[in-house]
């Protein structure tokens, strides 16, 4: 670990676990078995919080879109909610529904992306290509609604920048039917597959108790049987008006083990849930405007005067996402802005779930918490004799594929 050096001085900000985030693991091995795990995040620190504390809230909102390419709308949404609480902005009811629809489409695309990555980690590349092909439909709908595939820029303080009008519903419905028709196929491919079951069952187990103690969030904690979902616990946007329940692994299998397989179960069934939520939203959507204040100059003036502190939480695809904002009424920029992304809470679980597993299981276990980072760029392995070697991502991936082939033989 000591030879790691950052080549430049970086101003500081939030960690953001974006896809292919550089992160270093150190495993202490005993033969094939992992004895100790250590990881060092922070290699992708871009100083976003630091930058935010020097910008006005509308500028920060667009910075939020860029914290993560996959859960982009959730960071913007949660920041908007925090600022709306401080400035007491009343969001029009229709905007809550637009926010909910876009957030659920994002969940669909994120979960399918993850499913593809998981298949790839197991050496099941046919399924990886299929999953990513299926994902395109949800990204197309997001583009249809917002104009962008990533960095949607649809959230605004006090509402949304675009409306979803009834004439757009047929296109949305078409996408929902597409996914509904595929659901059986996805369940069949992911959950009935013998190889996936062999590799994922009883691998990377996180017990309910440890999930709670390590403060894990989202599908990772739900897969361990810990009922926790911000959408239901502290309803935000339109979720309080809708009828749905927390997805736990017992929806599919009789017992909850908290292994990688259960994490797949939770995510697949959350896609089904998202389809249902979007349908309910389209049915119940009230009429009216989608933005509280259309004049940005006036909005910024009001925000400059606002003072107080607030935090907001949303259920991003990977789990609870939380922003804390403090404004003092003297300056445009917030006095404090803290971003807590979902993976921030889930990383501690790695140490727990990797212990006692084999090297070949590292990729799928690391990916199972959906860290926006499926394979690390490199992994340092310290053997029992203290001999240090660097395994490349490709080597590690090959080991995982070989294990699958061995099990199939």
């Amino acid at each position, binding site marked *: 670990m*000591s030879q*790691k*050096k*950052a080549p*430049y*001085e*970086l*101003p*500081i*900000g939030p*960690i953001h676990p974006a896809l292919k985030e550089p992160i270093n693991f150190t495993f202490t091995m005993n033969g094939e078995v992992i004895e100790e795990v250590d990881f*060092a*995040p*922070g290699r992708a*620190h871009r*100083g976003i*919080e*630091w930058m935010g504390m020097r910008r006005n809230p509308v500028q920060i909102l667009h910075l939020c879109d860029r914290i993560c390419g996959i859960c982009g709308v959730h960071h913007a949404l949660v920041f908007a*909610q925090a600022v709306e*609480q401080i400035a007491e902005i009343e*969001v029009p*009811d229709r905007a*809550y529904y637009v926010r909910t629809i876009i957030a659920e489409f994002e969940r669909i695309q994120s979960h399918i992306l993850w499913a593809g990555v998981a298949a790839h980690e197991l050496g099941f590349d046919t399924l990886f290509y299929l999953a990513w092909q299926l994902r395109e439909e949800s990204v197309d709908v997001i583009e249809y609604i917002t104009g962008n595939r990533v960095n949607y820029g649809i959230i605004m303080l006090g509402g949304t920048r675009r409306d979803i009008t009834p004439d757009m519903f047929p296109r949305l419905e078409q996408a929902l039917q597409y996914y509904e028709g595929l659901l059986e196929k996805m369940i069949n491919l992911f959950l009935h597959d013998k190889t996936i079951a062999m590799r994922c069952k009883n691998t990377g187990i996180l017990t309910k108790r440890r999930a*709670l*103690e*390590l*403060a*894990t*969030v989202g599908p990772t904690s739900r897969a361990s049987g*810990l*009922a*926790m*979902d911000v959408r*239901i*616990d*502290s*309803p*935000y*946007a*339109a979720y*309080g*008006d809708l009828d749905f329940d*927390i997805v736990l692994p017992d929806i599919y299998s009789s017992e909850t083990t908290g292994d990688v397989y259960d994490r797949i179960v939770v995510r697949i069934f959350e896609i089904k849930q998202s389809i249902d939520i979007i349908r309910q939203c389209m049915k*119940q959507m*009230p009429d009216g405007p989608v933005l509280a204040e259309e004049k940005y100059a006036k909005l910024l003036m009001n925000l400059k005067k606002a003072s107080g502190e*607030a*935090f907001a*939480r949303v259920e991003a695809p990977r789990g*609870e996402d*939380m922003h*804390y904002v*403090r404004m003092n009424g003297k300056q445009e920029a917030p*006095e*404090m802005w*803290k971003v*807590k992304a979902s993976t*921030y*809470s889930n*990383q*501690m679980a790695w140490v727990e779930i990797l212990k006692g597993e084999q090297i070949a299981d590292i990729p799928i276990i690391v990916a199972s918490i959906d860290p926006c980072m499926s394979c690390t760029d490199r992994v340092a392995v310290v053997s029992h004799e203290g001999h240090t070697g660097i395994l490349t991502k490709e080597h590690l991936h090959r080991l995982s594929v070989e294990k699958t082939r061995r099990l199939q033989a």
Partner: protein
Amino acid sequence: MRATMTPQELADRFVTRFGSRVQNVLVKEWCEGTKKLPQKTVWMTVPREILTDAVAELISIDYPHLGVIAASDTGDMIDLLYHLQVFFGGKHEEINVVFTVQVPKSDPHVPTISGLIPGAVYSEREKQDMIGVIVDGIPDSRRIFLPDDFPSGVYPWRKDDKGIPQSMVKELWKVDRPTDRPAPPVAEPEPAQDIEPESPRAASGGATE
């Protein structure tokens, strides 16, 4: 039903247990959606001496989920905000609890809560990095997000002279091509003005007509 008490009852329980040592106890609600179901939060200021007792008291009510520890530089003091949730899992029953702990910059010590909530280590390590508090009893005090060669005594979230100095800020828009690099193995391409007049440059000039 998971919730055994209302936010007000939870706040009262802390006031009964700790008396005047917990201050600024506030019960807040924020509603969204057409049904306006509330998100319930109890805010309170807790001195650092009883922080672990306060967390233990919360655990005796229901084992909490630690969202994050936020921190803010307020001048002479540092505010640490422990965002915890209890009663999640029931439908719309969750109560958020925020403990604000104020520590003076001259003596920035705070006890660890990782003995009670093991997952807190991650956030506590980040606070040591970012705002320069010292978490007493932390099981792992290494840096977490800052690189190993980051200067000591500089804390990015500080607003005083211990914050990021201007010399560390890289103005990317001002950055020119580096001059201290070794010569490239392949010769640099010829400057642009040597390109023939039929180049795309001339073509783009024609597009303005």
